[in-house]
């Protein structure tokens, strides 16, 4: 029973990985691609690792999988935010049909 639940978690994680990478190919803009592919981390790989934890239980590899989940959840939004900020500062244009750009308005209001 526990094995079936862990398989379900792993399949859900793989589906999120696949859709995130499909969005990385398909979407038109750096920011859109970042928004699609960050779902790979928290829902995809963390779900695979949680499936591994359910499969192994409280053994060495299971507890290491839990540690890896905590580390990924702490670090992945930080790196995504750093990439988006760096791209906006280095002057990557938004897509033509983008609606609003609050960071540009903030920079104009400060200066």
């Amino acid at each position, binding site marked *: 029973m526990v094995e079936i639940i862990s398989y379900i978690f792993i399949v859900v994680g793989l589906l999120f990985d*696949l859709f995130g990478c499909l969005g990385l190919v398909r979407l038109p803009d*750096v920011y859109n691609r970042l928004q699609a592919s960050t779902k790979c981390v928290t829902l*995809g790989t963390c779900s695979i*690792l949680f499936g591994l934890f359910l499969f192994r239980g409280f053994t*060495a590899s299971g507890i290491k999988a839990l540690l890896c989940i905590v580390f990924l959840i702490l670090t992945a939004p930080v790196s995504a935010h750093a990439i988006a900020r*760096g791209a906006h500062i280095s002057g990557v244009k938004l897509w033509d049909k983008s609606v609003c750009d609050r960071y540009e308005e903030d920079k104009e209001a400060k200066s």
Partner: protein
Amino acid sequence: MRRFRWVIGLLMIVALILGLIFYPPASLLEWQSISLMRFFFILSLCSIFCLYRILRGPTPADRIVAIDILGILVVGFCAVLGIPTGRPWYIDIGIAWALQSFIGTIALAKYLEGKGFEE
């Protein structure tokens, strides 16, 4: 013409997935569970998508995003490999790779801002 090219690409991807699921290579049939092998193939398909974006990214930011996601996918590879083989040190490789990928992504983002590292 553009839609025609999209249809041909989709057909090729679907044929690749179906072929890998239903007719796997014989050298990989020695694994414990056949479904885990399919998980491995799906992850390699995702990494092929990431490699496409690394090759054809119009700006450096696209390539950095793809490199970040590729590092995350390697952690998934290590987790999937740790299940059928039963060796606990695969997930150690995953933890080390996640740490190194995070530091590398932060360094590349600082490079993208055009500032020095001493700030």
